[in-house]
């Protein structure tokens, strides 16, 4: 062809052996993202992840709304992990405004975010089960998730989009019999998720599907900047709840789960171990929590931050989630930038899928704990 085509419109050269597959962007279960995969027979030669189909401009939207009005839309990237998504924003705004959060509110925030982490991981696990053709593992987590969704509904007033955390504490105090209700459900939940081991994690069929698939070495995990369960499955002990404790995590005994294999099996097991750890944290927090007291600091109606900038990060269900807020003495933030775990874990997809069989793609892809909407923001 003689005419020069603009970039992005070049014709692809045909190769007899290599075939290009578009996985997505309508991908059942995962949300909207595309993987451009080149296969040689059954083996993947290269993989090019293409996120951006659900870009919502959350960061730009945050520049036109004041610090309180930002709450409902900033939790939208991951609605079933909405407490953890709002957590760094609230911590950042509190530092900008110089607000000290009451102790009871800090404990309740820890409880809410751990409950929400369990809800998120159960959802993730249900999808992982159905990706691997294990439909029991879809039904069980989707049902058991209801225990905590119902509890969060009683606590915050909404099933998934809670809008519960605000700069200065939490929106409302918990109902009267919350401690008993929570303890009962956490104990039952823990008993229930231990049953998953026999049917899923110790199941030889699952092990043969995932063990050795998409191995990420410790050095590569650090070099590629992965985070969360992907990083901890490769043998790096990095949990922000332990390394940089925020709120009252420093007073709680947090154990971070680390596995050394770095394969899909290890990556899928870490979130399950995290759920067991969350149950421990909730029980500790319920015991140490002050039984009464204020849960919210009364702020001015339209609070203004100084000429300042702040970066806060928390451990979300998908890894470290940072929020960088720049304030220019106005009721609205000048800039809100979110650094999310999903996007950072996506980077290692081309490295993990090279040389894998095409059938292993779902097992590797979803084990990265990736959430498309959060990656696009």
């Amino acid at each position, binding site marked *: 062809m003689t005419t020069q085509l603009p970039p992005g419109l070049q014709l692809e050269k045909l190769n007899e052996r290599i075939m290009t597959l578009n996985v997505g962007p309508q991908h059942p279960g995962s949300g909207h993202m595309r993987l451009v995969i080149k296969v040689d027979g059954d083996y993947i030669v290269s993989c090019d992840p293409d996120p951006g189909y659900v870009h919502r401009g959350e960061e730009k939207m945050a520049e036109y709304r004041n610090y309180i009005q930002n709450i409902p839309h900033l939790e939208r990237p991951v609605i079933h992990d909405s407490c953890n998504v709002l957590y760094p924003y609230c911590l950042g705004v509190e530092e900008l405004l110089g607000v000290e959060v009451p102790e009871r509110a800090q404990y309740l925030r820890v409880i809410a975010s751990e409950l929400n982490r369990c809800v998120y991981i159960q959802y993730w696990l249900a999808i992982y089960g159905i990706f691997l053709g294990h439909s029991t593992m879809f039904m069980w987590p989707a049902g058991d998730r209801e225990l905590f969704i119902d509890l969060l*509904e009683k606590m915050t007033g909404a099933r998934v989009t809670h809008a519960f955390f605000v700069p200065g504490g939490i*929106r409302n105090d918990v*109902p009267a019999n919350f401690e008993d209700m929570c303890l009962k459900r956490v104990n*039952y939940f823990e008993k229930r998720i231990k*049953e998953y081991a026999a049917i899923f994690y110790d199941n*030889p069929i699952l092990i043969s599907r995932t063990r050795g698939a998409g191995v990420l070495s410790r050095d590569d995990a650090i070099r590629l900047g992965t985070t969360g369960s992907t990083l901890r499955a490769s043998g790096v002990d990095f949990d922000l709840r332990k390394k940089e404790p925020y709120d009252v995590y420093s007073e709680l005994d947090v154990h971070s789960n680390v596995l050394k294999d770095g394969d899909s099996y290890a990556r899928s097991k870490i979130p399950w171990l995290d759920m067991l750890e969350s149950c421990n944290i909730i029980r500790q927090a319920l015991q140490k929590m002050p039984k009464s007291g204020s849960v919210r600091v009364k702020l001015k109606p339209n609070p203004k931050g100084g000429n300042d900038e702040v970066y806060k990060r928390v451990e979300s269900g998908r890894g470290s989630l940072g929020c960088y807020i720049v304030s220019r003495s106005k009721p609205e933030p000048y800039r809100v930038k979110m650094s999310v775990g999903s996007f950072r874990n996506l980077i290692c997809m081309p490295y993990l899928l090279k040389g894998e069989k095409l059938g292993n793609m779902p097992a590797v892809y979803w084990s990265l704990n990736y959430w498309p909407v959060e990656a696009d923001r």
Partner: protein
Amino acid sequence: MGTATGIIKALNSGIKHLAVKRFTLRYPEQKLKFVGDGYQFDPTTGVGIAGYKGRHMLFHDKCTGCQLCAIACEGVAEAIGMVKVQEDWKQNKKGIMPQIDYGKCVFCGLCVDACPFYALYMTNDYELSSFTKEALIYTPAQLQVKPYVQQDAEIVFDARGATHG
């Protein structure tokens, strides 16, 4: 553990659940019970009262037409508009009250937090579907009505697992 024992253990774990009661909530025969009468807010302490964030309820005798709820909703959902009402209240000289479009509302409850006169609360009513978009716009007269809800299902735990009562 051998492959055969592993598979037998996995099957056994699933078969045990044939004897366990189903956890499914049979909606709409059963409806989940919530705490209290819905999300409310106490402006003196600045803290909310736990409850479900459902359809709003407006107390006409307390609303002053100050528009703070509409201002709070600006930039969130823009679901609240102030409309003229044909009622005479001495605290509401302008005669305007909020009208809520449930096609836009995200049920965050920030309008309830903004009301300083205890006039706007949320209720346990969440069944708001309709055949037209216009029917989702609730006028002040519709918001005044206390919804009739019959919600009694709760998660109970017994030796055979958890069920919806």
